[in-house]
C-alpha cells in the first residue's frame, strides 16, 4: 500500500496508519452504482477500502447522466457494474473492484455478501433495500442504507441486534411516487453514507438508532431517534422473525 496516497486522511486522528490498514483490509458490498452508488464508491475507493463488490443489473442510459458521475456519454448502453469497476480501478489501482451485473435477490444475496464486513444499500427502490436487509440480518452483517426523493434524503446504519433494522423502520410504509433525483442531492447523501461507512469500518457507528434526514431545499440535517420494533418481521419476534439479540 502506498501510504502517500492516503497521507491527508491519515492525519485525521481517528484514522491514522492503523485505521488506514484497517480500511485496506476491508471488503464492502455496494448494491446500486447509480446516483448514490457512484459518489459513494468514489469516496470508498479514494479512501482505500481494499475490496469493493459492486452489484447493479442496469444498463447506463442518458437519463442517468444528470447525477451518476461514475459514467460518461460514451458509456451509454454499457452495464453499470462493468463500467463502475473499470472506472474505479483506474481511479485507485491499489484496490480490488468486482463488478457484478445482476439485481440483488434473496437467492443471490448470501453469495454477494461472502467475505464482506459491511453492506451498503444504494439502490433505487424499497423492496431491494428490504431484501438486502434480510440477507444482512441472517449473517449479522452491518448495513448502511441511504435513499433520496427529490430534495430529501435519509441515511441509517444498522447493526443487527443493537439498532433498528430497515424492516423495523419501513415495514408497512409506501414510497413516494418516485422518479425525482438531482445530482446535488444524491451526491450530498452519498457523501454522508460514505462517511458513515468509513467510520463503521473503523469500529464506530456515528448514528446508532437514528435516522439521519437531509433536506437539501431547507438545508437542514436532522437526527430522528428510532427504536427497534419488538414485532419486526426480520430482527424481532414477528412472523418469521429471526429473533436476533
Amino acid at each position: 500500500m502506498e501510504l502517500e496516497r492516503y497521507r491527508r486522511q491519515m492525519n485525521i486522528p481517528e484514522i491514522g496508519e492503523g485505521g488506514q490498514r484497517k480500511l485496506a483490509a476491508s471488503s464492502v458490498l455496494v448494491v446500486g452504482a447509480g446516483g448514490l452508488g457512484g459518489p459513494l464508491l468514489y469516496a470508498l475507493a479514494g479512501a482505500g477500502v481494499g475490496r469493493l463488490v459492486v452489484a447493479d443489473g442496469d444498463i447506463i442510459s442518458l437519463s442517468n447522466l444528470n447525477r451518476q458521475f461514475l459514467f460518461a456519454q460514451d458509456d451509454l448502453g454499457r452495464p453499470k457494474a462493468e463500467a463502475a469497476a473499470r472506472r474505479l480501478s483506474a481511479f485507485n489501482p491499489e484496490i480490488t473492484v468486482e463488478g457484478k451485473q445482476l439485481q440483488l435477490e434473496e437467492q443471490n444475496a448470501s453469495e454477494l455478501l461472502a467475505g464482506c464486513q459491511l453492506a451498503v444499500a444504494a439502490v433505487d427502490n424499497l423492496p431491494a433495500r428490504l431484501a438486502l436487509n434480510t440477507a444482512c440480518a441472517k449473517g449479522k452483517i452491518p448495513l448502511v442504507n441511504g435513499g433520496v426523493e427529490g430534495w430529501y434524503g435519509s441515511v441509517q446504519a444498522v447493526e443487527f441486534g443493537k439498532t433498528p433494522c430497515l424492516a423495523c423502520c419501513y415495514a408497512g410504509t409506501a414510497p413516494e411516487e418516485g422518479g425525482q433525483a438531482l445530482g446535488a442531492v444524491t451526491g450530498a447523501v452519498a457523501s454522508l453514507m460514505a462517511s458513515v461507512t468509513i467510520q463503521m469500518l473503523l469500529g464506530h457507528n456515528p448514528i446508532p438508532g437514528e435516522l439521519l434526514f437531509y433536506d437539501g431545499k431547507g438545508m437542514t440535517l436532522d437526527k430522528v431517534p428510532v427504536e427497534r420494533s419488538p414485532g419486526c418481521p426480520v430482527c424481532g419476534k414477528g412472523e418469521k422473525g429471526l429473533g436476533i439479540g
Partner: protein
Amino acid sequence: MAMVRYHGRLAELTGCREESLEGTNVTRVLDQIKKRHGSEAARLAKRSHIIVDKRSAGAEKGFRTPVGTDSMVEFIPVCGGG
C-alpha cells in the same frame, strides 16, 4: 395533546416544523392535519414514514398505532430512490 413534527415538504406545506395536535391514534392525528392544513398535507402525511414515540408506526399497528397525550409523532418523507 401530542407533539407532531414535520420534515421536508410537509413542513413547507403546513408552515411549521412542529405543533400540538389531538388524536388517540395515527388516523385521528391525520384527520387533524387535514382539518388544519388541508387535503394535500394530509395526503403527504399519510404517505410519510410515520414514527410514534421512536417506533415506526408501519411496524406497530399502522394507522391504528396509539398516540398518547405526551407522544411525539414524526412525519418523514420516505426516501426510497437512488
